[in-house]
């Protein structure tokens, strides 16, 4: 079921690459159209799963990744439409395609129903965190492109990115906005998660996953590290003038940790966050 959005995403990535390389306007429009088609198909799939399971598919890691990809696609489309800049598309699509491989190969699976999962705090927790990760993904792409362009201008050798990306100032502002939105959602998500655990202990005290919720759990620990990194980025920006390149590096590091936590830790290390089938 995930094959159709995946195919659209791949085609869109190809079109964005050609557009980035040759700057042919028609390929740019084609890329956006394909991405819209992919996002629509993806919306349809997620909608079907939601009707089937009674909630948005994000309990299992694979489904959560798919939902994250969907949010990232929407967030990017929003940025592209509001800024009229297509230069970031190829980078965002690379992440989208890379992550969507997992759901596309594994298939949607069956979303479990469980009273623990139907708690409103759980919903808030997962929705806020996926939104936060999508924002961070966008911020990381913006940060990377900032560094690429910064290096070109500093080196006085304006070969490639100069003609293809928005200005440093615009990238810096976009980066800090995306990080701020992500940080706010992350804070909400973590708080909702913490509150939910106390409720969940009352509803299902014997559930091993609920019992594994502690600061020592890899997933929770790394999430807190993520929060610390982004908090530092926001504070350093205001207080010690860490803007531009430093800020950009931090958002790239932050998102690397997010990916590590979201994919590797979820699949292999954590005992607490595994609600999939």
């Amino acid at each position, binding site marked *: 079921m995930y094959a159709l959005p995946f195919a659209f995403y791949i085609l869109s990535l190809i079109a964005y690459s050609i557009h980035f390389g040759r*700057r*042919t*306007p028609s390929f740019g429009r084609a890329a956006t159209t394909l991405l819209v088609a992919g996002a629509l198909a993806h919306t349809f799939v997620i909608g079907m799963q939601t009707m089937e399971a009674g909630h948005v598919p994000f309990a299992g890691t694979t489904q959560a990744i798919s939902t994250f990809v969907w949010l990232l696609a929407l967030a990017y489309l929003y940025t592209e439409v509001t800024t009229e800049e297509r230069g970031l598309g190829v980078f965002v699509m690379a992440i989208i395609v890379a992550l969507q491989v997992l759901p596309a190969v594994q298939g949607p699976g069956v979303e479990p129903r469980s009273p623990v999962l139907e708690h409103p705090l759980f919903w808030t927790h997962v929705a806020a965190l996926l939104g936060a990760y999508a924002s961070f993904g966008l911020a990381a792409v913006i940060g990377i492109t900032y560094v690429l*362009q910064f290096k070109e*201008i*500093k080196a*006085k050798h*304006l070969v490639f990115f*100069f*003609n293809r990306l*928005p*200005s*440093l*100032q*615009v990238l810096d502002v976009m980066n800090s906005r995306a990080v701020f939105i992500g940080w706010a959602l992350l804070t909400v998500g973590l708080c909702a998660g913490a509150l939910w655990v106390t409720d969940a202990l009352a509803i299902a005290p014997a559930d091993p996953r609920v019992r594994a919720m502690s600061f020592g759990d890899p997933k929770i620990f790394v999430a807190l590290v993520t929060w610390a990194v982004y908090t530092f980025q926001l504070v350093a920006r205001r*207080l*010690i*003038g860490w*803007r*531009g*390149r*430093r800020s950009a590096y931090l958002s790239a590091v932050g998102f690397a940790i997010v990916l590590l936590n979201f994919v590797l830790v979820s699949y292999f290390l954590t005992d607490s966050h595994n609600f999939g089938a």
Partner: protein
Amino acid sequence: MHLLLVGASHRTAPVELRERLDFCSRGLDLAVRALAERQSAAEAVVVSTCNRAELYVACEDPTSAASDLLGFFSDFHQLPTAHIEPHLYSHLDQDAARHLFRVSSGLDSLVVGEPQILGQIKDAYGVATTAQSAGPLLNKLFHWAFGVGKRVRSETALSEGAVSVSFAAVSLAKKIFGNLSGRRVLVVGAGDMGKLTAVHLRAQGVATIVITSRTLAHAQDLANEVGGTVAPWDSLQEALLEADIVITCTGATTPILSKAEVKAAMPASRTRALFLIDIAVPRDVDPRAADIEQVFLYNIDDLQAIVRENLQKRGAEIGRAEQIIEEEVQKFASWHRSRDAVPTIVALRQHFEAVRKAELERLEPKMASLSPEARARVDEITRLLVEKLLLRPTEQLKKSGDISQHADAVTRLFALDQKDRGSSER
């Protein structure tokens, strides 16, 4: 109808002659009206810029028209023909179209790909339409040329990248700050290059331009010229703190801004980058200042290197641009050729219509008993029948490779050249 171009440009004529051939000084509309009155020109457009003076006309006999256009150059500018003739070029039909397409794309410009030329051609065409001197052929040609100009600009990088030092500085500033409105510019020194760059930045809508110079009077002069304010020389350090873009162009023999001084302008509380454009020789800013985070330092050599690189890149796009132009020239030529079929097609239609009318007239007595509606129907049916019969041959004739031969055949087959055929058939 032939398309003929006669003109002189920076490629063929020295600047002294181009100055004297300029049509704009006495009014382009005057020139185009005078040209349209000549017998040889059925339609006329005059293109005149500082790098070219060109006459585009539609004419029946290109050879006599060409010498008449030479005469027009000579009459209008009161110069002996022998003076002008060696510097003129003339192109016919698709060569003329190719020339105009190359001009409108910026390929024939002094600086390849410069953007103004398309606007200048549009203006020239505008004057001609107001003077009603452009007809079907030149209308089609010029609109086609505008399209080609746009196509070349959007599909190739021919017009991309700054090709002057001051534009290179402005485009860098845009890449660092995005929109330049609201940015503050500091000009240190009152050199010419500094002035030029400041003028370009002003055009981008910067908020303020502050000028400081060791000689206050020079600073004041420059401030008046570019619409800026003057700051005293000893407050340079404070001015640096305020500025986003700094242009230095003093005649000082030692650097006036050390790395430490630039560093002092970048406290942690500063939220903006600093773009230093050092166009002075010898340099005004210590090159090590470039090591400071969020400081971008470009000197005149760096900017010139960018200009050279951009010119090379434009050069590399010429082939692609020529390809597009050739494609469009072929399309235009085939449209132009198809126009040769028009008189034959008109004659053919008139002939068929005459036959139809004659037949209806002959049958008039037999149709007398019919109702008016029925008669109208008969008229309609015969008309449609003729239209349908003529549709295919019309298309084929326009598309034909050798229009004159086929037109000739049609003319002979239907005896279209016999004036009184209508009556003789009756």
